[in-house]
């Protein structure tokens, strides 16, 4: 990779409280995101993608902690940093927006208050200036009559508008990295595209790195540069978007792609990925083998016994015994 990544994660593990002792809900995750690049992390609910995203912003809930690996932001490892150190980074160098804009704003404060405090948390500037900067931010996220929005309360805004406000707050201090955790899931289909194109536009303008967390592969197809598919807390396939969509190697990725739903014509909503049989195992249930073994159509005896190692494929890596074997055979044939 030619450009030094602004976000570099190695071997990340996240522990959650278990029955008796903590268990790793995420493990062995590697990430590199460069300036101006969009990385998508894709997976079903419970696959650990949101935990990963929260870990990147130091926002893991109480009791959940990074149990291994490194998270480097602009070259500094922040994995074990204090809350105080995180506070200086958050909202400044690394920002985050969340799934549900309906609940992500404080209902009893005005939009203006909430934007202004985002700016002032990192830059001590005067009242008037900060206000006009807030107005400017709202303008940039394409809210008409930003002055009025400054005085409005969240409940007076639609979901899409609120997500724009949240984006405005997230980019207030020109962050290097923006993590968007399912930014459009809770929104109408028509609004989804607007928000994503807004994010894309802002990314281009500011050159920030964008990490897009989603369960929706079809979204990714258009906006992401690279994609990492996660399953049961582990990466199963990480490749450039084009090659992943074109020639996905992991049976899970293929199943996801095959199950990629069409939008329901009436509501425009996408059903969840219900077509893959079975369900994601919980962290406690994970055994030694491949986590996907139970649901995999190509399962082999090895799959249940040994966790697969990364296999390098074109534009990325895959974690699958089948691919490994295939490749081995292929390379064997070459040799």
């Amino acid at each position, binding site marked *: 990779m030619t450009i030094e990544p602004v976000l570099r994660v190695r071997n990340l593990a996240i522990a959650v409280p278990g029955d008796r002792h903590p268990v790793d809900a995420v493990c062995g995750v590697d990430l590199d995101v460069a300036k101006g690049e969009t990385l998508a992390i894709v997976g079903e609910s419970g696959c650990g993608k949101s935990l990963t995203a929260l870990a990147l*912003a130091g*926002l893991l*809930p*109480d009791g959940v902690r990074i149990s291994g690996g490194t998270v480097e932001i602009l070259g500094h490892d922040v994995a074990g940093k204090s*809350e105080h150190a*995180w*506070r*200086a*980074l*958050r*909202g*400044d160098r690394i*920002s*985050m*927006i*969340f799934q*549900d804009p309906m*609940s*992500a*704003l*404080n*209902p*009893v*404060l005005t939009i203006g208050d909430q934007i202004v*405090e*985002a700016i002032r*948390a*990192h830059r001590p500037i005067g009242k008037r200036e900060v206000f006009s900067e807030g107005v400017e931010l709202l303008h940039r996220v394409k809210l008409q009559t930003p002055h009025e929005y400054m005085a409005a*309360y969240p*409940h007076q805004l639609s979901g899409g508008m609120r997500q724009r406000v*949240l984006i405005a*707050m*997230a980019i207030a201090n020109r962050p290097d990295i923006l993590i968007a955790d399912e930014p459009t899931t809770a929104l109408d289909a028509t609004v989804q595209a607007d928000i994503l194109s807004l994010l894309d536009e802002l990314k281009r303008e500011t050159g920030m790195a964008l990490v897009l967390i989603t369960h929706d592969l079809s979204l990714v197809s258009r906006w992401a540069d690279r994609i990492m598919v996660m399953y049961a807390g582990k990466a199963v396939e990480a490749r450039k978007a084009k090659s992943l969509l074109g020639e996905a190697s992991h049976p899970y990725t293929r199943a996801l792609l095959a199950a990629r739903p069409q939008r329901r014509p009436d509501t425009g909503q996408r059903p969840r990925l219900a077509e893959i049989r079975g369900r994601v195992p919980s962290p406690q249930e994970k055994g030694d083998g491949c986590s996907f073994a139970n649901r995999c159509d190509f399962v082999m005896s090895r799959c249940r016994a040994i966790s697969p190692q990364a296999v390098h494929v074109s534009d990325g890596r895959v974690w699958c015994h089948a691919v490994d074997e295939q490749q081995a055979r292929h390379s064997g044939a070459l040799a």
Partner: protein
Amino acid sequence: MGARIAQMVPTLFLLLLAAFTLLHLAPGDAAQVLAGESGGGDTTYLANLRSRFGLDQPIYVQFMLYARNVLSGDLGFSFRNNMNVVDLIGARLLPTLLLTGSAMAVAVAFGMTAGALAAAHAGKWQDRLISGIALLIYATPGFLLGIGLMILFGVTLPWLPIGGFVASQGIDSGFEYALSVAKHLVLPVVTLGALYAAIYTRFTRGAMLEIYVQDHVRTARAKGLAASRIILRHVMRNASLPLITVIGLQAGSLLSGAILVETVFAWPGLGRLAFEAVQQRDYNLLAGLVLTTGTLVVLINLCVDLLYAVLDPRVTLR
């Protein structure tokens, strides 16, 4: 708003009817009590008293007369006390409001602070300690707490007066009067306030923990705000909304608590008056008191609604 007030009218009417009927169902009457306390009497004496108290009328006539008077702002005459009920209640209203109002203020201040501290240290020893103390206070019968405080601070360490509203003597100026009332107020307020402080501590802690995990707090953290700002502006402020509702709901129980506290500390308030009115079957007085306390509770709830509307932009008053 007007609708809400209109809605309370039938409630208050029911209240009046209930108080009146219940007392008349009670065996024994005011005249007999007075005769008994006076050391006896003869038939003429009792008949005289009864007709004076209006007890010889049919019950519905008594009620009609009463309801008509109430509508014209007259709560009747307490024959037992030789005074108009309005005057009698008027004289005792201020002490009760002073007591319950101060207790409420103290309870809210302490409860919110302690609750916030406990929530901020959830699961740690600070939380355990605060929650433990709150639970202990909550579980202690109010009169035991009151008598305990009285013995400690009024007798063993004679720092505070043991009861009453104001010192019997040595009051020469308005300032001294106020100071003396304030001194007399301390123990009753602490006794009554402690229970509610405990309740609000537990409630604030719970509400704050609930709000801590809400999305907008995560947003605030994502902005990189300082912890103190998050707690005060994003957690505490939002947690105060359900707390206000609870405070409104407990207005009635606060007046209940006042009965015990006023008895222990000889505080000349409505609660004690109510207890005496029950014991003496002073119907007019008791009905007036039930009506007054009920109206107070209704008014407090109305204020709470108003306050809520001010604090929560999502709520508009109908």
